[in-house]
């Protein structure tokens, strides 16, 4: 289902599921922000999260009159170390000059609606500890620390 979201003063931005035609724009937007070209990665992400099991996997884009100004990706995950099914967000991006204008919040709200419709009542994510921008964004949406801790170990 395509869900139109409110128009701001300048133009209507539609939050909708990604299509294969959007992926080059997603790649370009990500490259603008990260300075890394990850062509194969984004095509793989679309294959996994935009093209199958769309009842529990969501790859949404912010379509600003044909230009992709943001995207968010997530899925319903279950039973990882005792976690009951919950929504997981693992990518969100907004064109830098459009940030702090509510587009990220709209992407977040839309994917949360999708998670609710999929039957879960909780959304989770994992962010780098030193990534203050993204951590502040999720906190501003109302997210707080959860009951899980990320652990890691070097293998070399």
């Amino acid at each position: 289902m395509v869900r139109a979201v409110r128009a701001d003063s300048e133009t209507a931005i539609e939050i909708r599921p990604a299509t294969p035609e959007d992926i080059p724009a997603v790649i370009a937007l990500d490259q603008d922000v990260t300075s890394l070209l990850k062509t194969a990665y984004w095509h793989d992400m679309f294959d996994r999260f935009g093209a199958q099991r769309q009842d529990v996997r969501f790859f949404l884009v912010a379509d600003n009159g044909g230009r992709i100004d943001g995207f968010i990706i997530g899925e319903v995950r279950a039973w990882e170390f005792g976690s009951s099914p919950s929504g997981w967000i693992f990518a969100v991006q907004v064109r830098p000059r459009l940030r702090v204008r509510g587009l990220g919040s709209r992407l977040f709200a839309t994917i949360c609606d999708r998670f609710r419709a999929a039957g879960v009542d909780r959304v989770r994510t994992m962010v780098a500890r030193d990534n203050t921008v993204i951590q502040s964004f999720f906190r501003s949406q109302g997210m707080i620390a959860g009951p899980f801790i990320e652990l890691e170990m070097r293998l070399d």
Partner: protein
Amino acid sequence: MKLQKATEFALYAVLELAADPQRQLTALDIADKYGISAHHLAKVLRDLGRAGLVAAVRGVGGGYRFAGNAKRLTLLDVIRLFEDVGGSADAPTRSPAPDIAEGLRFVLAEIDAQTVATLRSISLATMLKLSAHRPRESATDARPQRRTASRVR
């Protein structure tokens, strides 16, 4: 984590004033609301004024009003005016040290790094939202529904 009294009072005052930037409140107004010492709070407010977070309004009906940007200022910005937090996260490693001392320092630095990251990621605006709409369970209350390693590959 326990904050010093002055830091706690500063957070009360800044958040109370940031909740309505047009409003002016005296030290007594805020102290009464939180049941804290007006004398101590007055000193804290002067420090906040020097840091540019609040502005003193003189004359009858005077007091203090918020003078910062609630979306940009974080809890860490306010706290670090009054005390050091996360000191060991930033501190250079002193070497050489016995293994046990080094190991303990490593773990304490991990805790400090988490504390700093949390305080740095919460703006005053976010804190006010969180205060108004507290989650039904706190992070420390929440527990995984099943506490077994159910998916280890």
